[in-house]
């Protein structure tokens, strides 16, 4: 017991550091474990963008940004520990990059009044700002992804999917189960048949699922994986010679490291996206000058231009723009989490703004409102070419089935509101 008390005293001493007057952004990253392949580039991008702002502009509105990195290992318990240890520092916004941790944090951030931004992941129905006051998932969510994948299939089938079969290979967790509802609704609407193939975390074991695909020969396979599961899925698909152009991954299953292990056989694999590709943007010149050449990269500095690095960069850009909006709205530079929430709710991303940031065309134009925390839900499609080692854009950002998704979002968020006695806002 003595040992316990001593260690507790030690930790208390360190937890009680003084709160400094700067903009605190916690980065709940994971650079270890089976999902590190995706966690490292995202966190690098997220950190590097804030480093760039600090080095080039001296922070945002003159306030320096302090990023606190905390390793979660994609584990919900560690995520909670990270949240509790950083929230006292005046954390402005959380981005856990994990649907499991998001579910954990939604009630906590709402009670603590801190915004949570889950870009392209998390609880889809959080797009309904009337119920989820502190949770944002702009610019696109999982159900946009599911609908985007089906829309792409409709396009290449001249608008008719009747009698076709689609298999969903998904991570057997809250993350992987998210699109099922939408796909079921869409399968009714368009008359295709849906097969569900769950893969248990972390996803190295997929032999039986792919055996079933080999036997049943579905017309299309949709992949909802993350981390090591993607590499295994693409490799297994190559092993059974499944036609790659009929294999579509969600945006979290569409990075270089997912397809590279399968070599040339991965050519033709498609993935959804909501961010721009490559490093052909003016912002990268600044990144090179102020961050890479100065030796201030968060990681090894070898991820620049990678798909998930760009997503991290984009998430950081959206957070920085929301901080700017909040600073303008409230007329102070040292904003609080509550002001940050207002800033995120009033965020407007225009093409002119993105061009000014050196990120023209990096993402879609959109604006957030009190009712809509989900953004426009525009989804593009990219295709892998192993010979050049690049993703090629084959479909620009296109709207998804707002009618089906909107109804599902209203239904799910109404259930959440009833469960937790939340009355709707924005009236």
């Amino acid at each position, binding site marked *: *017991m003595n*040992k*316990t008390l001593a*260690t*507790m005293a*030690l*930790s*208390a001493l*360190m*937890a009680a*550091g003084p709160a400094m007057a700067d903009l605190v952004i916690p980065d709940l*990253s994971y*650079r*270890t474990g089976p999902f*590190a392949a995706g966690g*490292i580039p995202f966190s690098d991008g997220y950190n590097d963008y804030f480093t760039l702002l600090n080095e080039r502009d001296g922070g945002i509105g003159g306030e320096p940004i302090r990023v606190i*990195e*905390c*390793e979660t*290992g994609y*584990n*919900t*318990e560690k995520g*909670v*520990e990270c949240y*509790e*240890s950083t*929230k*006292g520092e005046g954390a402005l916004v959380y981005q856990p990059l994990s*649907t*499991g941790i998001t*579910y*954990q944090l939604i*009630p*906590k951030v*709402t*009670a*603590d009044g801190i915004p949570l931004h889950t870009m392209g992941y998390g*609880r889809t129905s959080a797009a309904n700002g009337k119920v989820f006051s502190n949770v944002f998932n702009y610019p696109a969510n999982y159900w946009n992804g599911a609908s985007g994948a089906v829309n792409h299939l409709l396009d290449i089938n001249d608008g008719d999917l009747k009698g076709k079969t689609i298999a969903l290979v998904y991570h*057997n*967790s*809250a993350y992987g*189960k*998210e699109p*099922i*509802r939408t796909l079921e609704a869409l399968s009714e609407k368009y008359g295709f048949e849906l097969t569900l193939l*769950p893969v*248990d*975390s972390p996803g190295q074991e997929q032999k039986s699922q792919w055996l079933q695909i080999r036997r049943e020969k579905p017309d299309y396979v949709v992949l909802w994986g993350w981390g090591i599961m993607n590499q295994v899925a693409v490799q297994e698909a190559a092993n059974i010679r499944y036609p790659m152009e009929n294999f579509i991954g969600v945006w979290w299953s569409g990075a270089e490291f997912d397809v590279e292990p399968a070599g040339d056989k991965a050519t033709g694999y498609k993935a959804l996206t909501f961010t721009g590709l490559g490093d052909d943007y003016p912002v990268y010149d600044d990144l090179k000058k102020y961050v890479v050449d100065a030796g201030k990269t968060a990681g090894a500095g070898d991820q620049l231009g990678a798909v998930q690095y760009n997503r991290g960069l984009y998430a950081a850009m959206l957070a920085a723009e929301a901080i700017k909006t909040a600073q303008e709205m409230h007329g102070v530079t040292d904003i609080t989490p509550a002001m940050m929430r207002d800033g995120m709710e009033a965020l407007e991303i225009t093409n002119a703004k993105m061009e000014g940031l050196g990120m023209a065309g990096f993402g879609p134009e959109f604006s957030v409102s009190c009712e809509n925390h989900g953004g426009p839900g525009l989804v593009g499609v990219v295709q892998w070419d192993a010979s050049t080692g690049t993703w090629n854009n084959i479909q620009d950002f296109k709207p998804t089935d707002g009618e089906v998704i909107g109804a599902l979002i209203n239904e*799910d968020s109404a259930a959440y509101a009833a*469960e*937790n*006695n939340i009355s709707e806002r924005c009236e």
Partner: protein
Amino acid sequence: MFYREAGDFKTSYTADSQTFPIKFDRYRYYVVLAVAFGIIPFIINDYWANALLLPFLIYAIAAIGLNILVGYCGQVSLGTGGFMAVGAYACYKLMTAFPDISMFIHVILAGGITAIVGVLFGLPSLRIKGFYLAVATLAAQFFLVWLFNRVPWFYNYSASGQINAPERDVFGIVITGPNAPAWATYLFCLIFVTVCAIVARNLTRGSTGRKWMAIRDMDIAAEIIGVNPLKAKLTAFAVSSFFVGVAGALFFAVYLGAVEVGEVFGIQKSFLVLFMVIIGGLGSIFGSFAGAAFLVLLPVVLKLIGVDLLGWPTDIVAHLNLVVVGALIIMFLILEPHGLAQLWRVAKEKLRLWPFPH
């Protein structure tokens, strides 16, 4: 000088057979209880509760439960994670079905349901032993996790397959959900830990515990002297699963609030609790506390020293944590196979002789 029996006269059999026969021990125990109940609730904050104290208390209950089965009765179990999941899901179903009933009753009922499931999976222990039993309980672990993932009834048909603890109270004080104050959740768990530890301590000191230990030391000899192995083994499974179920229910409802069964109650959890029991000391209630404290606090302390104090990259510290925990387990197995509890026992023996060791 202070730590000895001399001068502490016992005049009744009850006094002679009490848990802490030495006066100093007794006072230390009261001081720990007084600090835990009287002081910590007033100074606790969210970080202390959610990052350190709640996991420590809840893992301590789970470790006591597993220690009864493995340490006292000698039945190796790798199903702890699965049984914790039973407790969590039972608690969830009860919480959502009967929202007006006190959380105390829900948690105890969840423990009871886990005890029944534990007895069911304990039945094979009558025929198989040692490693083979470990494999049979491993089957329980995988089966239970699969079951909770597979059957939507258990998670009330929610889209994500997760269970979320709704807000519930005890005598008007919110215990679960995000608005629960830190002191309330802490006290709630502390009451369970205290009661569980006292019950476990007295069970293991009495005839039930002696039967378990007889079975552990040599089952055939125990049977010959009149211990019923069926009863002894199944009571050990029932009591152990009850504690583990209570721990699972608290882990879900009070600590995490939202649970995904495959991740939270997977095989890693079974191993973690087993490591706690081994590092803490097999067959010791104090060892369960020491092991839980050690494995809950070690990563946090390493993180504080590595990341916050020395400024090392987070991934290096995370990897270092694995290395240190692994190395410590090996070190303990070699240098002190009886765990932290044995160190404590040795220290007490030394104290008894101090300052005249000869």
